[in-house]
């Protein structure tokens, strides 16, 4: 059974406008807009690296990279 | 030509007769002889079928005002051209008309022009060459015959520069015809 891949999500707080598109497009509910209307990464462990959030972020605020385990 | 060496020519007729080209050819000839020229014309839709006017100023020195103000020679080949652009002449102005296509203008007299030379230009062209082609060049021949403004050979060179080879022979003959008509004016021309 292949080992589950893990991904590192980088979020640029300065560029993010908390629009919530990443929340809408993420198939794994990794993100949410919190009670303060702020972008939050709540389930990073569930990320499958599909890049949907990266490609749909209008503000270039997200990158998702695979973490290579040695 | 007046004493300041300025010669002013106005030609008028209808668009397509090649009067503008005629004025350009004479301008080229004058330049070849080291003279200064300004050539102009009325422009626009009316130049293509309607009444047209071509003007040429030739001088031995710099020409400041480029348009004709007091023509030495007015050559008209249509009644409408003469009517529209025949004003602004003076006792200095020799007027040439094509008597075979125009009625003798009653408004010209000894008081308002230097003289009127009525020559049957088109009918002579047709009888000689069966064509009106070369009307503009025949007119140049008449102007040359009257003024000797440039050397005839220079004028021939300028004609050759601008007329296509297949029509050159006819046009050279038309040029000669124009000059002949002036020489023969005592017999055929009507002068006032």
């Amino acid at each position, binding site marked *: 059974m292949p080992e589950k891949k893990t991904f590192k999500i980088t979020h640029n707080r*300065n*560029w*993010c*406008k*908390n*629009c*919530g*598109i990443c*929340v*809408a*497009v993420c198939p794994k509910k990794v993100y949410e807009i919190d009670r303060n209307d702020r972008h939050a990464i709540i389930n990073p462990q569930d990320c499958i690296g599909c890049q*949907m959030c990266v*490609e*749909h*972020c*209008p*503000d*270039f605020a997200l990158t998702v990279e695979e973490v290579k385990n040695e | 030509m007046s004493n300041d060496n300025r010669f002013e020519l106005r030609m008028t007729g209808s668009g397509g007769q090649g009067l503008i080209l005629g004025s350009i050819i004479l301008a080229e000839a004058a330049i070849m002889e080291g003279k200064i020229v300004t050539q102009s014309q009325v422009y626009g839709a009316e130049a293509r079928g309607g009444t047209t006017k071509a003007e040429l100023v030739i001088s031995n020195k710099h020409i400041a005002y480029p348009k004709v103000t007091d023509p030495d020679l007015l050559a008209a080949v249509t009644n409408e051209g003469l009517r529209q652009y025949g004003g602004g002449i003076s006792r200095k102005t020799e007027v040439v008309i094509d008597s075979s296509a125009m009625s003798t203008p009653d408004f010209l007299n000894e008081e308002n022009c230097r003289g009127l030379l009525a020559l049957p230009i088109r009918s002579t062209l047709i009888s000689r060459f069966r064509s009106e082609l070369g009307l503009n060049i025949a007119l140049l021949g008449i102007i040359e015959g009257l003024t000797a403004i440039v050397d005839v050979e220079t004028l021939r060179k300028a004609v050759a520069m601008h007329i296509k080879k297949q029509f050159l022979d006819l046009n050279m003959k038309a040029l000669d015809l124009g000059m002949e008509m002036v020489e023969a004016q005592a017999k055929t021309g009507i002068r006032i």
Partner: protein
Amino acid sequence: MRPDFLRSERLPNIWCPGCGNGIVLHALLEAIDQLQLDPDKVVLVSGIGCSSRAPAYTAFDNVHTLHGRAIPVATGIKLANPDLTVIVVTGDGDGSAIGGNHLIHAARRDVDITVVVFNNYNYGMTGGQASPLTPSTSITTTTPNGNLDRPFDLVKLAAGAGATYAARSGIYFTRHLIDHLKKAITHDGFSLVDAVAQCPTYFGRFNKKGSAGQMVTSQKDWMVLKSVAEKRTPEELVGKIIIGEFVNIERRTPASAGAPKEQA
């Protein structure tokens, strides 16, 4: 997407939260990256409007022109230096209203430039007025009772004018969008991509389209791939927008001694 394609010092961008322009720009930069174009030879030219600010966030030569006038400037650049990849970034208003005449003539001439229309169905920068691509009955600030006019089909317009490449895509389908941008850029001749994006601030709000996220994901519901649409009946396609490649033909360059390409 290569991060050095962005002028990071100019970010964050001026667009509203949830604006689709950044998504189209992201796809465009990704397409340029995937095509491995020499970044020194890429010029982005834009007009006026929200989308036309996009080139200034990129690290390429960028020319922000006047409202509607990006295409003639791009034409001048391309003809002056045919080695360059010249991409026009325009909006639906900029490109099809005030710049509509330039658009059809560039298509007719088949100038080898790519026009990417950031289509959000309204004028965003001036406050959400109707554009020539605003759908009929839609509410905008200049159609408060619903748009009485019919919109252009931009792809058909370009095709009718002689464009040799025309495609439509939506920002939800980013891979599809990138793919068609790549085809458009590499196409020899005039190419246009109608990139349907969202304006949540005006068009979305006035027409009750939901949040930015909903506007993005809803494209799944009202956009149909051309290959799928071909198997559907007209009734099934009512209210749908078809995305895909509509024109991709070889350009026919008239043999002209004066054409700069031949001279080079």
